[in-house]
């Protein structure tokens, strides 16, 4: 328990450190926010007014704590470009991203683990080679290429699924699922190999141990050995790699979003970076950091729980 509390406290500290970095990073960008809002039409008077309005004349440290205070109370500020509240425009995007990531992970993680187990059971045989070969090939192809192939065959030729995955509020659940089948599949093919290969490697590593040999000598079946003895001891590295891939599904899918016209966070971030909409970039950066850190905490906690030595420290 103490270990877990430690991890969470560390995570919160890390998030604070990241918030400082994000703030400092946007601070040292050339030009100031007022100038980038007004653009070419800037007059000195208008610049001064806007700086005053945005509180840009305060020292950086004051502005940092104002911003942090806002974030902690759920106020992410106002977008410079649209003048809309960031939280209200960002939340639906975040949900969309999580929706796609969740369903992709719900299919990809069990599939990767099962394929990994199968590969271990039939290691070095044709099944192992086929699974590894397929997974490595799909992960080696760039995701936009996979995306276009899926669109060509399943949307244009067979017309089973829509090629554009625009989901919106009030769309029936099944339609939403149908809309994300193609982007989900593209992402699945990208993340599958990494998790599958890690599962295979971690279990194979455990399979070298003496107690596995004992289990074999006891006459247990191969599947029982893997399921009861090898897998529980290989969970920690597997969970780690699973979490890394989940994080990728949340923060790294902008290419897939563009191809399938999926209204997630990636495109939202890119649009606002292009317009130098600093408050939005800060907010999105912070959310991405929070996702990364919390998923890593989850991985650590899972590793602790899976390891009797850490669970019951002496």
């Amino acid at each position, binding site marked *: 328990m103490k270990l877990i509390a430690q991890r969470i406290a560390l995570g919160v500290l890390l998030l604070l450190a990241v918030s400082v970095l994000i703030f400092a990073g946007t601070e040292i960008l050339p030009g100031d926010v007022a100038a980038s809002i007004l653009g070419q039409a800037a007059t000195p008077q208008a610049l001064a007014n806007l700086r005053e309005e945005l509180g840009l004349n305060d020292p950086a440290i004051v502005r940092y704590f104002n911003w942090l205070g806002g974030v902690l109370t759920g106020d992410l500020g106002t*977008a410079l470009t649209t003048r809309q509240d960031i939280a209200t425009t960002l939340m639906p995007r975040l949900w969309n991203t999580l929706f796609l990531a969740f369903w992709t992970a719900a299919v990809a993680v069990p599939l990767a683990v099962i394929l990994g187990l199968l590969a271990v059971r039939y290691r070095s045989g044709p099944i192992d080679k086929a699974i590894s070969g397929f997974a490595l090939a799909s992960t080696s192809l760039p995701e936009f290429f996979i995306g276009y192939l899926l669109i060509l065959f399943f949307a244009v030729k067979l017309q089973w699924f829509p090629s*554009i995955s625009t989901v919106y509020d009030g769309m029936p659940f099944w339609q939403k699922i149908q809309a994300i089948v193609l982007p989900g599949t593209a992402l699945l093919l990208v993340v599958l190999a990494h998790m599958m290969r890690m599962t295979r490697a971690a279990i194979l590593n455990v399979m070298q141990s003496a107690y596995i040999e004992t289990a074999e000598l006891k006459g247990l079946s191969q599947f029982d050995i893997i399921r009861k003895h090898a897998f529980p001891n290989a969970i920690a590295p597997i969970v780690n790699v699973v979490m890394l891939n989940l994080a990728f599904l949340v923060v790294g899918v902008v290419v897939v979003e563009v*191809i399938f*016209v999926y209204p997630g966070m990636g495109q939202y971030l890119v649009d606002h970076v292009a317009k130098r909409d600093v408050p939005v970039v800060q907010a999105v950066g912070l959310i991405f950091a929070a996702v990364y850190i919390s998923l890593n905490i989850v991985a650590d906690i899972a590793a602790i729980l899976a390891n009797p030595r850490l669970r019951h420290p002496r």
Partner: protein
Amino acid sequence: MSDELDFLSRHVVRGRLSRRDFLGRAAALGVSATFANSLLASAARAQGPVKGGTLKAGMQGGESTNSLDPASFLSQVPFNFGKCWGEYLCRLNRDGSIQNLIAEEIGASDDATTWTMKIKQGVEFHNGKTLTAEDVAATLERHTNEESKSGALGIMKGITGIKASGNEVIVELAEADADFPYLMADYHLIIQPNGGKDNPAEGVSAGPYKVVVNEPGVRYVGEKFANYWGGDAMGHADTVEIVVINDATARTSALQGGQVHMINRVEPKIVSLVERVAGVTIQNVAGRGFYPFNMFCDTPPFDNNDLRMALKLAMNREELLDKILFGYGSVGNDFPINEAYPLFPEGIEQRTFDPEAAAAAYKKSGHSGSIVLRTSDVAFPGAVDAAQLYQQSCAQAGITIEIKREPGDGYWSEVWNKQPFSLSYWGGRSTQNQFYSTALLSTADWNDTRWKRPEFDKMLLTARAELDEDKRKAIYRDMAIMLRDEGGVIVPFFNEFIDATTDKVGGYEKHPAAELMDGYALAECWVAA
């Protein structure tokens, strides 16, 4: 044969024959699929608009930073959606004339400095309020105000006074301008309640559709406005929807898969492939945009007209049109106006590639050494290739061009309008006066060829105040010839707007002012049976 086709196509429209059967029979009669499709379309139009259904467009040019504030409109999606929900004082017709909308009448004083617009009575806003002359005046005021940062600010600069009186709005101009109605047709000038001064981005006007979904960069939905003042002229579909699809491949496949009924910006290089898709029609129309090679007329060595002429004669326009735009455009003639503009001066001799004459002019100019031409991917699609092709054709005339490829970031702030010889692009304006005032008046900020001729300015101001169209046309002709023979702009070609529609779209008629029927495609087309 054509009688039979007409007969068959009418059958399709009435639902007695499937489209596929029709195409099959048309093929049996030896007719190409494209022609058969266009026959179908015209039969559908003759049948009259079909009411109801949802019309969907997939479009490039939308970002999550877009706002419904008309002053902020810049990219294609807000422009097109604006024509669905917004209502304007007037609009451009296909022949370049003006159709009055909210402004029932637009009249000028004899000197064209005072303009009076009579506002249509009984027009209702989406929020139930009645549109008044005060709303119109407030709208114009807001776009004239520097603080609105309106995209229309440039054309509103000449306005010195706006006032509403009764059902009329009276506008005073600093200088005479016979083209005033064209300025009022600008796509930013959507009439809003109290001019949008209270809440500019609320998306309320008096157009045929009400805004029901506004997700910037993702999707927009408009629902038919029951009390639309214009009756049956527009707003045939019950619902119109725009899905933002910035990726060209995704856009085409959405059209192919039938998820959208029309798309904008088909890339020239894939047009021939898209054309072959059953049920898809390419809608290309000559626009006013062009891709200039700009020379500064006041900077050596380009201050020498012989050198400018040599560089103009050394351009192989047909080759550039063919290889850069794949033929989807028309060759330029070294002045920035083409036949899509009202009062286009016809019959000016076309400049052609003439290496000998170019070499002679080059020799006469006395220049030696290489000439630096700056280009970048962002200047226009294919700008780097265009510079290289130009380098080759110049070499044939013995002129050495040194290409400097500049980074895209900063091209518009550091190279364009700063360096003496560079590639760029220009979108069209609604009149010749507007274009010349923006880009070729001595005092214009965007005079990107440093063309400073008092006599040219004088001609422009005279034409602006001239209410007699024949006389104006004659002045525009002289200006065009002057630019062609002495100006600093080399115009390789004008580009085309290339849209594509499926056979679900009825009533598509090309409009030269802008893509997708000048943005009115969703409002004026219908879902074909």
